């Protein structure tokens, strides 16, 4: 093994692979888990944000009245902070990929660019006092023309959000290779189409919450809050404030869901720091629900041309994607358009592929990262193309997919966008799905139903998700550091740079470590989310908790295990430490359980009588490890392509829906899911990721859409107007797993945090269109809300 690269650690283990329950579940179900808003530091001051009423205007803010209100400690504005503080750091910067420079300030200095944008921060002793005083902040607006529609924003005379850019395009680019137009000209048929996705939003149940505490005595800042990425955020806060990183501590208490929203780059993360520094006391800001809904995603249009041959093979795809980003943000959300484009060919062999993408700013709230980070675009595109090819050629849609897939013996397979798909068995996924779904029987049922005036449809969705991203130049990497240490009493502590958004990866990492040390789960504890004690990590982004945090913990645990075997061999008078095994809390000679010592005794001996029992062994039971992914490549190839992803989990879904053609309501009757994310450490946790992703996908496909009026005011400001699926809206899922281990990761695992969303969006879109096909109607826009379905039917041949 070359040092630093991923070895294979694939022996059978008792705990890993079993659905152990959450190690701290009792604290959750009894309400004792403390989220950020549950903390109460003595002397905390409270922040209320004054927000813009208009979509685009020059502003002047008068805070004099507000400052006189009872309990008010300070009122900050963009202008009051501009002298001392520059723009906030970008989680990702569009400039290296040819985009525009982003300058996002904690509060805007002279101009607002969306309704709801914070313009002033009122800080008071109590929240009620801050709320009351906020009404007395006078904002004078000098309105500017605004633009909400990306096509209008691209017009030559469009109002500019950021004048220095000279246009409203934040970033544009092209991915792919070959000559799609020439390939289309040679092909048997060509399909043109458009796909639109409405504006979604991540909306975790817990809104964002930040609290900063400046200790004037030690001159250190402690930041508590909802973040997925404590170490990158510490770096950003230190850079922003001009502090050394060691003078900033970021603590991430358990979060109430993230889905990308709680990666770093939000202005309020820095606002509480600035205010805490100024007031030398803890300052807290808690977001309300309406604010969470101001951060969107998707809101894209793809115009595509695909070509195919008579045998159903897709010969080319060329597309133009325009993404409506809303206002600019520092969260790196624009990367969704780029990642989405790279992922577009999915798991299909598309010899000639091109995507031209443009990320356009408009006067809506900014994009937020949202799982599956833009990759749903390509899944929707390719699954739409596959169904269109099936209709044109008369082939069954399943057969069209079989003909176009990358085959088992072709891995690792390099797509036309330069991604190297690690492994997979896409045919196997479908075969498995068909053991659950009797396809022929459904088609008969569908025919009978149509005779009775009922419109059933079956839709297929297939996804390949690049995950475990490592972005050159950004603090988004595919390596996290883990430390494993054993105390004199045999207690094991894992410290890791990955965080847990509630998915159970903490428990799964404990499983991995317990196995490798031969101890019980309750001998192991884990510490995450504190930059003062945890080794560096990139947090939980890009589905890498187990991939990187688990992999590095396995390596570190193996080091400690080797040490225990060495000491144990010495104590048991065995020459070859390799003959010893760690199992059930004992170090024993393999095959001779009589020769055994409790692991705790061996640990204690190393700490206390090491000079007698193991004088040649370095007296530590601690290791800190990480590794590099062997398949990531940052040196650009001849076409300028890099390979920034670690794994490519995949899945196929078959959805059955019934469309009520009188109301336009879509009812999901069956949802068959087959997933492959390689080795599963805790299958139940993995299943939970997918079922959660599916319901995110159902929302995106059928009900969730952030709407604005013409004046840019958000009509979807809460859960009565942004409709998350409820338990009664979704069916029981029929779930199967397939395991195709990654050849490149230590434990054979692949990312599992983003699965199900894209697949579900595609399978439901295709199912609705299958149901509507006898009416000659179809939709090309999600969510398929009733008015859209009815409009499609009205435009058909009913």
């Amino acid at each position, binding site marked *: 093994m070359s040092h630093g690269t991923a070895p294979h650690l694939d022996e059978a283990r008792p705990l890993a692979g079993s659905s152990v329950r959450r190690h701290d579940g009792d604290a959750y179900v009894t309400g004792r888990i403390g989220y950020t808003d549950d903390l109460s530091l003595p002397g905390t001051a409270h922040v209320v944000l004054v927000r813009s009423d208009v979509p685009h205007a020059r502003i002047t803010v008068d805070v004099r009245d507000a400052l006189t209100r009872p309990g008010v400690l300070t009122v900050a504005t963009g202008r009051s902070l501009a002298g001392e503080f520059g723009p906030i750091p970008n989680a990702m910067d569009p400039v290296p990929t040819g985009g525009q420079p982003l300058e996002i300030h904690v509060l805007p200095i002279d101009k607002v660019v969306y309704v709801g944008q914070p313009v002033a921060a009122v800080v008071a002793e109590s929240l009620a006092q801050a709320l009351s005083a906020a009404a007395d902040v006078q904002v004078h607006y000098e309105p500017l023309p605004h633009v909400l529609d990306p096509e209008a924003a691209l017009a030559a005379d469009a109002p500019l959000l950021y004048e220095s850019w000279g246009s409203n395009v934040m970033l544009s680019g092209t991915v792919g290779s070959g000559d799609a137009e020439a390939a289309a000209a040679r092909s048997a048929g060509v399909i043109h189409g458009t796909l639109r996705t409405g504006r979604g939003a991540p909306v975790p149940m817990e809104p964002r919450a930040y609290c900063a505490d400046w200790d004037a005595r030690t001159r250190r800042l402690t930041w508590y809050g909802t973040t997925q990425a404590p170490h990158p955020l510490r770096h950003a806060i230190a850079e922003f404030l001009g502090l050394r990183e060691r003078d900033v501590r970021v603590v991430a208490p358990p979060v109430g869901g993230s889905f990308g929203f709680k990666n770093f780059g939000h202005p309020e993360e820095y606002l509480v720091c600035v205010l805490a520094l100024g007031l030398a006391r803890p300052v807290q800001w808690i977001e309300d629900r309406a604010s969470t809904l101001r951060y969107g995603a998707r809101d894209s249009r793809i115009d595509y041309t695909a070509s195919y041959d008579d045998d159903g093979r897709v010969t080319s795809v060329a597309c133009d994607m325009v993404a409506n980003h809303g206002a600019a943000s520092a969260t790196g959300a624009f990367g969704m358009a780029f990642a989405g484009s790279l992922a577009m060919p999915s798991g299909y062999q598309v010899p000639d592929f091109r995507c031209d993408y443009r990320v356009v700013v408009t006067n809506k709230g900014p994009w937020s990262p949202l799982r599956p980070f833009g990759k749903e675009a390509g899944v929707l595109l390719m699954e739409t193309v596959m169904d269109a090819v099936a209709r044109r050629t008369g082939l069954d849609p399943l057969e069209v997919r079989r003909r176009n897939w990358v085959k088992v013996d072709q891995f690792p397979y390099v797509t036309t966008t330069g991604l190297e798909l690690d492994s997979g068995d896409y045919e196997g996924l479908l075969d498995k799905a068909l053991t659950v779904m009797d396809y022929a029987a459904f088609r008969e049922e569908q025919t009978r139903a149509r005779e009775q005036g009922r419109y059933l449809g079956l839709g297929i969705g297939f996804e390949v998700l690049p995950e475990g991203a490592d972005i050159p130049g950004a603090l988004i990497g595919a390596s996290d550091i883990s430390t494993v240490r054993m105390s004199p009493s045999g207690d094991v502590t894992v410290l890791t740079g990955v965080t847990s958004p509630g998915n159970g990866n903490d428990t799964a990492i404990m499983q991995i470590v317990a196995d490798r040390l031969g101890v019980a789960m309750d001998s192991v504890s884990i510490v995450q989310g504190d930059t003062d004690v945890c080794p560096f990590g990139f947090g939980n982004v890009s589905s890498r908790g187990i991939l990187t945090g688990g992999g590095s913990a396995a390596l570190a645990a193996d080091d400690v295990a080797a040490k225990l075997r060495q000491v144990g061999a010495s104590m048991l008078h065995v020459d070859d430490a390799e003959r010893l095994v760690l199992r059930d809390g004992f170090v024993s000679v393999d095959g001779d359980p009589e020769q055994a010592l409790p692991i705790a005794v061996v640990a204690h001996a190393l700490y206390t009588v090491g000079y007698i029992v193991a004088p040649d062994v370095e007296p530590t039971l601690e290791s800190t490890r990480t590794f590099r992914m062997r398949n990531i490549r940052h040196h650009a190839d001849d076409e300028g392509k890099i390979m920034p992803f670690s794994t490519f989990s995949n899945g196929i879904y078959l959805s059955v829906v019934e469309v009520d053609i009188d109301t336009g309501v879509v009812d999901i009757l069956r949802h068959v899911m087959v997933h492959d994310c390689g080795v599963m450490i805790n299958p139940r946790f993995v299943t939970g990721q997918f079922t959660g992703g599916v319901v995110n996908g159902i929302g995106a496909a059928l009900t969730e859409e952030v709407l604005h009026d013409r004046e840019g005011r958000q009509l979807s400001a809460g859960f009565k107007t942004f409709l998350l699926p*409820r338990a009664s809206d979704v069916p029981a899922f029929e779930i199967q797993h397939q395991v195709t281990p990654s050849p490149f990761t230590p434990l054979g695992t692949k990312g599992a945090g983003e699965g199900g969303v894209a697949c579900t969006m595609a399978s439901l879109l295709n199912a609705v269109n299958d149901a509507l096909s006898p009416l000659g109607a179809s939709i090309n826009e999600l969510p398929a809300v009733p008015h859209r379905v009815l409009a499609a039917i009205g435009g058909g041949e009913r």
Partner: protein
Amino acid sequence: MSTNEQVHSISTRLSLNLDGTDRTADVDPRSLLVEALRDDFGVTAPKIGCATGDCGACTSRVDGQITKTCLRLAVSAEGSQIVTTQGLAEDGQLDVVQQAFWDEQAFQCGFCLSGMIFAASELLAENPDPSDQDIRWAISGNLCRCTGYEAIVAAVRTAAVRQREIPQRG
């Protein structure tokens, strides 16, 4: 002093039986019950997910009735008996629903648990053998963004089976 400033200084005394203990605190009369529970009584099990009665994260049992505590003013609960998920477990022993939620991995981030657990408890009190559809309807007043509801339904099913097999405490 303007009227506004006088309002700021007003607080009112609120007495509750909270998770089995008689408690008294000074609360702002404008406070929602969930705000008073969290900020003035320091019981943080009920969460604020929307403050509009849509998500259910603030649910507690008030005088025997499960209640979205963001939809009531704190002062309206004077003298009430309130149970939160913090008080459901007796003598460190998890309630049958809590236990099933843990065993069945019926939560991820856990923010929705107050609503889900109380809705499930209420269902099982009325219907010891609910169908999956009964369960889905019973919990549909609560939002969960993580689990896809599947595991929650399984947990309520498990709790129902266990409740039928083992007589309830007390």
